[in-house]
């Protein structure tokens, strides 16, 4: 992978010692981790008052907001009669650590990187933050019934997108080094013990069990290619009917990246946008090329399972199941994929 670099030995940390590690980390890094409030876990900056929660399945919101916040001022400006002065936001200096990132979410960064770094104009706002961040993953021992990561190229112990991967082996975490950046971070904790063979064997067994525990499967094998011929398929008339056109699925999707640009007084702001909103494609003339939920639903499916495959070589779905859990009307993306699979098209 990285030339002559070989990952260092696997380490272990007792669960009771994790707070010490986190405290040390916060001295040097901005640490983000899942924090639970009531029953909702969300990624928040860790502080003495805001301590990570370890008993979480996954966070309600994905982590994309750490790199691409829902509302972001891209620059401020001042105008007078002659001149325009543009002030760029201060460069991102601080280093970040994202702790306890589920493998599906970590994998979403690999996909988002492709989008934000592609083309002639790279997205410096996203890339700057991304560059300064170390991702510490947390493998899933017990996937949810809505998880379908294994159908989307991921796995509960997946390593794509993580620098270090924590694996919960009862009373301790096994720490697997995945990248050089991960190793750099780990070097700061020389007190960590080396893993024993029993630890790695235990993790291997848990990994296999977790893989088998992902019961929800969908086949995308022919979906990508089939969609090429389904733009005008009557299927869209059926499946969009119950869609409310809200932004739950897209805003909670770890791989949806669309945004809108607003000029507010003295500043240019970008905010998350959703292809499910009518204004997403509303033109200045008043014409809307995607006038109804049908076209908008088709766009979401086409984009995730066809267009991006052509542009970036990957399906933009990591199977985290957030849209499945949170859709107000239980419009289940897995059912849509199955309906496409089952469709006879010419």
């Amino acid at each position, binding site marked *: 992978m990285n030339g002559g670099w070989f990952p260092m030995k696997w380490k272990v940390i007792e669960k009771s010692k994790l707070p010490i590690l986190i405290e040390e980390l916060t001295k040097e890094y901005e640490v983000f981790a899942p924090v639970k409030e009531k*029953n*909702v876990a969300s990624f928040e900056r860790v502080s003495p008052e805001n301590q990570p929660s370890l008993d979480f399945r996954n966070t*309600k919101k994905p982590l994309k907001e750490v790199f691409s916040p829902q509302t972001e001022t891209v620059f401020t400006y001042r105008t007078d009669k002659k001149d325009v002065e543009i002030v760029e936001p201060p460069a991102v200096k601080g280093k970040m650590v994202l702790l306890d990132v589920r493998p599906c979410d970590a994998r979403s960064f690999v996909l988002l990187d492709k989008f934000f770094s592609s083309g002639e104009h790279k997205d410096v706002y996203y890339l700057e933050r991304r560059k300064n961040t170390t991702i510490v993953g947390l493998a899933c021992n017990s996937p*949810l019934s*809505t998880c379908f990561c294994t159908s989307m190229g991921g796995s509960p112990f997946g390593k794509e997108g993580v620098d270090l991967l924590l694996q919960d082996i009862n009373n301790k975490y096994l720490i697997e080094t995945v990248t050089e950046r991960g190793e750099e971070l780990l070097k700061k904790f020389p007190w960590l013990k080396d893993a024993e063979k029993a630890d790695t064997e235990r993790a291997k067994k848990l990994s296999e069990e977790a893989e088998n525990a992902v019961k929800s499967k969908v086949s995308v094998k022919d979906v990508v290619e089939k969609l090429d011929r389904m733009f005008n398929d009557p299927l869209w008339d059926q499946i969009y009917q*119950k869609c409310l056109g*809200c932004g739950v699925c897209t805003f909670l999707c770890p791989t949806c990246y669309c945004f809108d640009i607003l000029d507010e007084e003295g500043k240019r702001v970008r905010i998350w946008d959703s292809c499910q909103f009518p204004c997403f494609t509303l033109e200045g003339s008043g014409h809307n090329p995607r006038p109804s939920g049908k076209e908008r639903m088709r766009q979401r499916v086409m984009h995730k399972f066809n267009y991006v495959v052509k542009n970036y070589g990957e399906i933009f779905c990591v199977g985290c199941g957030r849209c499945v859990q949170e859709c*107000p009307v*239980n419009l289940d993306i897995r059912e849509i994929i199955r309906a496409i699979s089952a469709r006879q098209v010419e």
Partner: protein
Amino acid sequence: MENIENSIREVAEKLLSEKKVDLIIGYEQGTLPLRTTPCFVDKVEDIKKLVWNASCDANLSKYVLGRKEKIGVIAKGCDARLIAVCAIEKQFPRENVVIIGVPCLGVIDRKKIEAKLGDKEVLEATVEDEQIKVKGEGFELVLPKKDFLCDSCLTCKHRNPPICDVFVGEKVPENTEADEFAEVSDLEAKSAEERWQHFKEELSKCIRCYACRNVCPLCYCKMCFVDQTMPAWFGKTNDLSDTIIYHVVRAFHVAGRCVDCGACSRACPMDLNLRELIKKTEKIMKERYGYEAGVSLEEVPPLGEFKMEDPEEFIK
């Protein structure tokens, strides 16, 4: 429940086969435990998909909007009332809709079950009379249904649809005791500062996904005020000030029209209590105008007409 389900199917079949309606909008089994999903039936052979149970929580009146065909729609008390409100507001001709009224003792709030179970996931659930049996990895629990109903259902005064064309099943006793404005009274008892803190904490979690608006049958504007860009009346960011103004203006817009079906709170992915602010407007309408939305097809909503005797003590 099963009887009601059968009766619903019989009524639906009759309406469809006699061509009284072109489409039945009801519920079918969802893909997750304790979930149903809206179902659109235009063929008699699909009628068997229709279900009725305590998870039929979607407000189907939303789907009547914007349709040209004749529709039969399964309606709980709250759904029927919203069809009435939309009909008074001329969103569709009343005669285009056959309201299939169903008595309802409340729908289950899955968020309450999730909160109770913490990180345990429900993999299987059955509802029998007053009990919800939930099963998952290594646990099996029997929960009393009454503790896991949606808040809006706990104080519902119209378990039997006040307006409908066909009534399915038998009438259930109305809940006359519960104080539907208890939550509002709690809010009123707080100081302005405490209320501000409360709304600030709650609404700062909003992600502006508009599920609350889009699920609401009263939000039928072709262009919502927050979506307008020329001019942009309100900010679209998730900064607190933009978010609060969205929710406050929406509360004003549904004042005197909202029937507290609770769909907005159920739809919210961030678990915000979106009902309480709107409930306050409902209380004001009741106190000032003696008006209750969706119980009459004749009475014009107070904010839609002017009467000489309208209270106007605010004009000094």
